[in-house]
């Protein structure tokens, strides 16, 4: 949102809305370094009357502030394509305005095909950073504690298998990662459903917990699908011979770390407190 706000300037407005109070809004603003978009929060009495969390789609209003899209394509389902969808809608909405200045005149490969992958001149900082990361051995970081010992142990198991994958870089390690992920995600979802989301599952209308549950569990599915796809792509080759690139391992490690930061960190305090109360 912030990158868009910077890029689009006055041509469009981008509003992030915390539906879980001011503390989260402050934390989100600092974590995401929101400088250009509007970061806001809503009081309990002014919760959204409808809608979904951002990773299930953004809400887009036209210049008269009427809704033209209740939910853009979900990042959980189509990943980066979700952002292209928003940009396409915005382009149509601001067509009568001056075209926003594009950085480096780049065209996304999803729009421009193979031609868009060809770049002349200097690379931008982000691109160089990405290449530097890929050239290194994939790094698996330790994720923060979620204050529930069993889940911390499982996170360590996930990190260990990711580290093994970084070292062995074969489909056998991918298969092991899938098994560890499946077991861990199922256990985590069961604990969350039992201790935090029991009421949210049945909620009608907008519910922050229901939205958080959908997003969190949806991201589990996305992580599993990433691994499954890599395994499927190597289905014709022996598991120990089928290689996995450093970039692919890095992608999996980054996705896991991002998931732990964005989703697992959000439940740590509440889940540990709820489990302690139930004990």
């Amino acid at each position: 949102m912030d990158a868009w706000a910077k890029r689009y300037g006055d041509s469009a407005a981008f509003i992030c809305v915390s539906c879980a109070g001011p503390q989260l809004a402050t934390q989100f603003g600092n974590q995401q370094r929101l400088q250009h978009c509007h970061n806001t929060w809503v009081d309990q009495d002014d919760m959204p009357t409808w809608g979904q969390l951002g990773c299930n789609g953004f809400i887009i209003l036209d210049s008269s502030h009427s809704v033209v899209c209740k939910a853009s394509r979900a990042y959980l389902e189509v990943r980066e394509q979700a952002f292209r969808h928003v940009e396409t809608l915005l382009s149509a909405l601001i067509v009568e305005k001056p075209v926003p200045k594009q950085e480096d005149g780049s065209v996304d490969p999803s729009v421009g095909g193979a031609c868009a992958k060809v770049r002349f001149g200097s690379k931008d900082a982000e691109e160089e950073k990405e290449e530097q990361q890929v050239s290194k051995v994939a790094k698996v970081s330790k994720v923060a504690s979620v204050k529930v010992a069993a889940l911390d142990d499982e996170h360590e198991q996930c990190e260990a298998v990711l580290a093994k994958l970084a070292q062995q870089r074969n489909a056998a390690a991918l298969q092991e990662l899938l098994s560890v992920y499946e077991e861990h995600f199922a256990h985590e979802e069961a604990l969350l459903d039992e201790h935090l989301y029991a009421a949210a599952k049945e909620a009608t209308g907008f519910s922050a917990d229901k939205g958080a549950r959908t997003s969190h569990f949806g991201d589990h599915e996305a992580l599993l699908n990433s691994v499954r796809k890599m395994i499927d792509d190597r289905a014709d080759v022996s598991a120990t011979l089928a290689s996995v690139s450093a970039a692919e391992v890095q992608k999996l490690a980054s996705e896991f770390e991002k998931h732990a930061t964005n989703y697992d960190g959000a439940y740590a305090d509440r889940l540990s407190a709820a489990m302690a109360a139930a004990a």
Partner: protein
Amino acid sequence: MSKKSSSKLSAPIDKLLMVTPYPKAKATMNETSLSDLVPTGTPVVIHLYTG
């Protein structure tokens, strides 16, 4: 927002409380409305989040 014709759907939020920009991000009690925050004539993308 409330004066729109019935065929047009309004945004799911109106009353908003502002957070100051990074690097001094802090939630405030400064209240605004969607229409005050964004002038008519500008399209809007809304991202609802809980974490």
